[in-house]
């Protein structure tokens, strides 16, 4: 509920329109690349550069306003709500991919292999009579169209280590928060540094795992529904971890500069929330993609 203070309404700003343009150029470049237009990649790079410029500029403005003490408690609440609901939208984005995984395992593969006839009597009998259900699914209904892999990434190898890394990073970021609340700057920076490091180590391991899967196991995105769900889920997650780790690094940098106070450190919390979200998604991934 509103407080009586005057609400801060920013003056007109160029950042939103720069942001829009940068996204537009990025999408345009991407679309051109898909259509094999040579200039596409340059357009894409310009778009991404603009995007970075926009983020830097926009956040710089917000930071400056925040330091200048223009924000009331109420503005802070608006920011918090914004971040919270944004994370929910991200959850729903991942839900689509988890849904696809669930659907493939619970419905389409059983139907194709003749289990649980459902509404699809005859699918197995007349179309894919040699196909048998399995998970991970390595023999495709049409083996000619998709590549076979030698093996899949076992859960209790690098993925388990990665789970430990991310869980640990969830703990370290919380320690950092506690340190911040006690205004213990050294501890804050140390814990944050540990979190960033854990994040990047995770990404490093994940990249190694990808290389191993593609080169040694022949597991590619073209490997049927298993390869599709595996790479899309872990890929988008890896992308989010990378973004999260970069954001954490920025926060680390800012806390070294002394931007945050005991009471007022929303940016820190927002990134921490985001980090926890990435963490939880990984747990889902570990369980449903790698393990069972």
């Amino acid at each position, binding site marked *: 509920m509103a407080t009586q203070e005057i609400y801060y309404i920013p003056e007109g700003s160029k950042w939103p329109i720069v942001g829009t343009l940068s996204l537009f150029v990025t999408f345009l470049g991407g679309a051109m690349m898909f259509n094999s237009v040579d200039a596409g990649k340059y357009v894409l790079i310009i778009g991404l550069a603009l995007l970075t410029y926009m983020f830097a500029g926009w956040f710089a403005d917000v930071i400056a306003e925040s330091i200048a003490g223009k924000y009331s408690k109420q503005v802070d609440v608006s920011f918090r709500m914004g971040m919270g609901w944004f994370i929910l939208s991200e959850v729903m984005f991942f839900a689509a991919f988890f849904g696809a995984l669930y659907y493939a395992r619970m419905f389409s593969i059983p*139907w194709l292999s003749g289990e649980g006839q459902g509404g*699809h*009597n*005859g*699918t197995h009998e007349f179309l*894919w009579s040699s196909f048998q259900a399995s998970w991970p699914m390595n023999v495709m209904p049409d083996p000619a169209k998709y590549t076979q892999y030698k093996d899949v990434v076992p859960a209790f190898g690098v993925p388990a280590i990665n789970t430990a890394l991310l869980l640990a990073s969830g703990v370290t970021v919380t320690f950092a928060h506690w340190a911040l609340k006690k205004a213990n700057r050294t501890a804050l920076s140390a814990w944050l540094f540990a979190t960033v490091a854990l994040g990047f180590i995770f990404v490093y391991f994940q990249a190694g795992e990808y290389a191993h899967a593609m080169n040694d196991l022949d597991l590619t995105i073209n490997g049927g529904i298993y390869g599709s769900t595996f790479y899309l889920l872990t890929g988008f997650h890896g992308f989010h971890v990378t973004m999260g780790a970069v954001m954490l690094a920025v926060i680390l940098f800012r806390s070294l500069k002394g931007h945050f106070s005991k009471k007022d450190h929303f940016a820190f919390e927002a990134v921490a929330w985001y980090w926890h979200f990435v963490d939880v998604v990984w747990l889902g991934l570990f369980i449903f993609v790698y393990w069972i």
Partner: protein
Amino acid sequence: MKGISKLKSSLQKLVLALFFMPLSAMADWALNMRQGVTPISQEIYQMHMVTLWVVTVIGILVFGVMFWSIFHHRKSKGAKASKFSHSTTVEIIWTIIPTAIIISLAIPATKLLIKMDDTSESAITVKATGSQWKWKYDYLDGVGEGITIFSSLDAKSKEISQRDSGLDPMDHVNYLRDVDEPIVLPINTKIRILTTSQDVIHAWWLPDLGWKRDAIPGFINDNWAVIEKTGTYRGKCTEICGAGHGYMPIVLKAVSMQDYTAWVDEKKIAQAASKNTSNIVLNMEELMTKGEAVYKAQCLVCHQANGEGLKGAFPSIVGSPVAVEADNRMRHNQQIIYGKGLMPAFGEQLSDVDIASVVSFTRNAWGNNTGDIIQAKEVAEARKAAKVIK
């Protein structure tokens, strides 16, 4: 002025329709759902009518109250506004009554659905496979097993439907509702119909059977029907499947069991004969006539009557290297046999002599005057040769 008189009769019907809607909704004047010719389709019709009446009555009551209020509680009539703003009792009532109505509709719907779901103990099984843009029927089980039929839009509709054809659709009663070869089935027999597809999703719909089912590539759906009356029943593809979606009708001829078995015997002989045509030799004139017929039946939807195709979607055959260059004869034959990209394969559907004539035709029509003659034998060889089409 045909247009104007058309307009007049349309307007008359509009007036009729608006004023006699509830009445005419019952008459069979192309205003209402068809009752169909299977027990299921009739039950569906009943269910439709019941629901229609239920909502009509609800509508009359609800709008009646509203109009009463609009006429009597208006300021110009001196109505003073009351102050009330809620009443728990009426709110509960108007939650419970609709719930009750819905439950009473859901019960018969559930029973009907369960009945429709049971495809067991069918005597004949037919698989309908959609492709852009025709249907293929394989008789899998029961009398007629082994028959295959390809069924696409009739040549006359194809011609009329060309843009700027100058032909009037009004001249063809079954415009876009006829096929070259209908599927034939016996009456009073439980028939199981499987639907699937080769390329994109289609849907197989015969209103007189009471249902439609999607034809999904890689999956099979099944459904059933017992047709109770002989006759010709018409339907359409009802899932958007590209440019030819409107040109993919379904025609079913329901005949007595006797006629059906007779048809099966005849069909089997004809099918055996058409398998072996590679020894037939035709002269140029025969090839052109036959080729034109095949072209109109199979190729015209995409490549158009003038052979120029549709820009961006279907390439022109006029002047196309495949169709004019001498060393592309093999490619040309195999293009038809195996298809390519969005162009479907015709190898299974067309006999050697059919392919030979349509290839000859396209190499000589519309100014592609190559003078090339392709005989069935060459097609038979093209079938055996290594694939040059990727």
